[in-house]
């Protein structure tokens, strides 16, 4: 309740086109991937050797691949995989990022340690580091989640840390402290909700980035092992047939673009909405 309130009130006060479009697209994507399996009998793994590399038709909306598997079914289940990985990574990033960010916002020693570790993670170009990590611990869904988490968590830590440092000295926090409130409640109720906005922005970009990284890793064969229907795997498999069956490449590519675009719109929209410099409203 506490966390959602300021967020919601701002939401209702200022609507903005980017945010609305982005949210609408993401909702459509989510709803589609949930509803489609209920409406159609979809099996992403069923092989039909008689119908290989078929063009889109009424039976197979997006055609079939080289094993005769339904591309539409694989796109729908690929959405599950992509979104699951991205969601797990983002959730892990949020939890760990908020905890570590809060700790380093409060203690100098912790800040020094956490800060240096974060910095050393940020030194590498993100995707290269992801490849290194996956190469080291082997391809698996959980490992992809871990790699994305490791790469993105420093940004969330920084954001939370900045908010904590800014608000821990605010009058209202001092006021709450002088009433005798314990440290935990002070942080959870008075300080952290102020970081909600910037953290949400970070996380929506992180979510988009997670989808991209998962696709990229799968494309390189470092992501989910086949026959998992991941969008990255699908693009990778479609490389050979780019001339003969371009829909195999096009469909997952479009989905990735769509998902990433929608989340970036949400992130930008949130940032605009929460940026105090853009709120030149006069209080009448």
């Amino acid at each position, binding site marked *: 309740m506490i966390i959602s309130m300021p967020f919601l009130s701002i939401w209702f006060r200022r609507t903005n086109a980017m945010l609305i479009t982005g949210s609408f697209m993401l909702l459509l994507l989510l709803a589609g991937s949930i509803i489609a399996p209920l409406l159609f009998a979809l099996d992403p793994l069923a092989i039909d050797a008689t119908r290989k590399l078929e063009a889109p038709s009424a039976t197979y909306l997006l055609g079939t691949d080289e094993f005769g598997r339904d591309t539409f079914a694989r796109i729908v289940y690929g959405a599950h995989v992509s979104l699951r990985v991205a969601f797990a990574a983002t959730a892990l990033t949020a939890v760990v990022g908020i905890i570590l960010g809060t700790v380093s916002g409060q203690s100098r020693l912790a800040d020094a340690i956490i800060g240096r570790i974060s910095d050393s993670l940020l030194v590498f170009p993100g995707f290269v580091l992801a490849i290194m990590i996956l190469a080291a611990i082997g391809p698996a869904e959980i490992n992809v989640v871990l790699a994305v988490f490791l790469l993105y968590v420093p940004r969330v830590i920084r954001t939370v840390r900045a908010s904590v440092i800014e608000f821990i000295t605010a009058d209202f926090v001092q006021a709450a402290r002088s009433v005798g409130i314990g440290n935990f409640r002070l942080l959870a109720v008075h300080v952290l909700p102020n970081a909600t906005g910037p953290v949400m922005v970070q996380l929506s970009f992180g979510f988009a980035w997670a989808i991209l990284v998962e696709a990229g890793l799968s494309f390189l064969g470092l992501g989910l092992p086949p026959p998992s229907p991941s969008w990255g795997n699908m693009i990778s498999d479609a490389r050979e047939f780019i001339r003969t069956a371009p829909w195999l490449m096009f469909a997952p590519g479009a989905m990735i673009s769509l998902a990433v675009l929608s989340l970036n719109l949400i992130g930008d929209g949130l940032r605009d909405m929460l940026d105090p410099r853009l709120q*030149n409203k*006069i*209080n*009448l």
Partner: protein
Amino acid sequence: MKHVAPIPAESQTGTSGSGTTAFHGAAEPALEIRGLQVRFPSDQGPVSVIDGIDLSIAKGEILGLVGESGCGKTMLARSILRLIPPPGRVTGGKIMFDGVDLLGLNHERMRPIRGDKIAIVLQEPMTSLNPALRIGDQITEVLKAHRPLLSQAERNALASDLLEQVGIQMASQRLTQYPHELSGGIRQRVVIAMALVCGDVRLLIADEPTTALDVTIQAQILELFTRLQAERRMAVLLITHDLGVIAQTAHRVAVMYAGRIVEIAEVNQLFDSPRHPYTRGLLLSLPRRGVGLPKSQLPAIAGSVPKLSNLPSGCSFYDRCPHHLEDRCQVSVPALEETRPGSWVRCHRWRELPAFELPADVKP
């Protein structure tokens, strides 16, 4: 600019031309504001932040403008310089300066007036100076804009001269310092120097110029203001919420409440016999050394400052006023009436109010 028809009560004073000039007994006005209206759009429709203000400032006078936060006093200052922040807009009225209506000028023609003929000093000396520039450069920059023919050496000489005039010692050394190296009082002196650097300032607008300063420094800055004003025969519009500051510096006082002027009078008049219940309430509510019993209840004005988007109908002071009459005060907005030469009040009942008296002195 479209002139919005004022509400009926306003029209008596707001649009009758010669009557308004007589308003303030200012023989030769440096600035004359007539029927000024400033509006901001809001969720509940446009809100008048300034609602039909008539005001003139005579040459060589300090006009004090008193009011609380949100009463429109800062917007008034900004509209003189044409610096109303969007989405606010001037929706009516005239601001006559030097024979022209400032509201009718485009930006090209407004620029030579800003900073040269009309200057402004703001509340916070730290934010009105650029932290990245030496103060000498900031002062000469103003000169570059308005006196392009001077050489750099002449500009520097003018600048250090000016710093001495505003009471800064070792002026030539100060020119090379950055704002953060100076104390608050010196900074405000620099800001004043910058405002006056062109030497031709006819109207100085000072918006809460001492609010951020300590009392001992405030006294010094106020003294500087009065000295410079007398030396240069400038008109000064001094905006503040502090009645002490007004009493100590202003020649004439205008009291604003909720976007309108409710009382104008010569300073002794205003403090001796205020007419408007709001002015009276303010003066009575001030704790004063040696007046009234210590720890006794202060006479307070009831209620809170109304929101401009939600003003009472009729007199905007209606629901806080101890003298309000339902049948009159709630019905129409009172007009600004002349109570004696040079004194004006916006109250239906000013004739009926008892004489104003401060509580008796308590001698220890």
